């Protein structure tokens, strides 16, 4: 009988938390696998347009990113309010595009250099002028495979706001 009496005495038993690490680890692994590290810190507004003729971009190591857009609020004092180009982490001029692309290409393993693709992430409200200049530079640099990065969605939403 004493077996039963024993349970009544004492405080509320603590919840066993031994399996908590397991649960957290499970979450951790999920996020580790699903993670894509943010490539560059954006200093510009970059809202991509919608499009439905999109293809998924292949492996990241073949991609070179070029961003175009207006400087975001805290950088407007330094860089003004017109559209600018961001290469890697810093705001750059059109003339630097060729050097940047060539450097990136040389950093790639030899066998995939030909497959390099330039991903153009252009803010949807920016003017085409800058993009046209960048494309001319890319032609000069013989980086001919490009990609207008866009969100998958209805393109008509771009024009009717």
């Amino acid at each position, binding site marked *: 009988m004493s077996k039963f009496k024993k349970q009544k005495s004492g405080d509320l038993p603590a919840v066993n*938390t*031994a399996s*908590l*690490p397991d649960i*957290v*680890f499970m*979450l*951790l692994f999920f*996020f*580790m696998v*699903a*993670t*894509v*590290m*943010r490539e560059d810190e954006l200093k510009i507004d970059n809202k991509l*347009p*919608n*499009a*439905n*003729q*999109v*293809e*998924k*971009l292949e492996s990241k190591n073949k991609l070179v990113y070029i961003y*175009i857009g207006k400087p975001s609020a805290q950088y407007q004092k330094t860089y003004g309010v017109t559209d600018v180009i961001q290469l890697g982490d810093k705001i750059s001029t059109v003339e630097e595009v060729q050097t940047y692309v060539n450097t990136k290409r040389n950093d790639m393993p030899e066998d995939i250099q030909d497959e390099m693709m330039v*991903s*153009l992430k*252009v*803010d*949807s*409200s*920016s*003017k*085409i*002028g800058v*993009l*046209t*200049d960048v*494309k*001319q530079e*890319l*032609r*000069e640099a*013989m*980086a*001919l*495979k*490009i*990609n*207008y*990065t*866009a*969100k*998958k969605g209805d*393109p*008509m939403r*771009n*024009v009717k706001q």
Partner: protein
Amino acid sequence: MAKRSAPEVNAGSMADIAFLLLIFFLVTTTIEVDSGIQSKLPPPVPDDVQPPKIKQKNIFQVLVNQNNQLLVEDELMEIGDLTDAAVAFLDNGGGEGPAGCNYCQGAKDPESSDNPDKAVISLVNDRQATYNMYATVYNELVRAYTILRNRESNRRYNESFEDMYTRYKEWPETEKETPEYDKLSEQIDEIRDLFPLKLSEAEPQES
């Protein structure tokens, strides 16, 4: 000496460590994969090379002005009608004899394109137009090609071009030596050749 059991390691802080890592990955995560419209730039043209002559009727001119208005073949057009107009132009097949097009189902208007291989869409943008408009126009023009490719692919292989292409892209890496894969890749090339994407962007003009 009596045998003593080894003292248990305190695992209480394990959760804290895991949480720390978890939060780090949570913050740095961007789950979505980028996607975009593929395009190819023409190689730089040497100054002394004259551009090839293309008959006026084989050119489909699309113009976007600084107010984001769309001018197609000298007429104002709503963006929603652009794809249909482009399809009608590409699919026209107005040529005669060897320049004709036996798989086209268009109006066979002699004033419009001869065949999809000769038909060129020319896209001209004002520098002040917005990227929004540009992306939409570009997307709609590519869609015209996709519609035609799908139609032809459905007719020949009972499968839309997009499905075929997805299958091609997602083919397991280990089975790429099989005849099925080669056949699929041949079919895709064939459909592509029937409606080659000829989207030309004008050289920017000094203004």
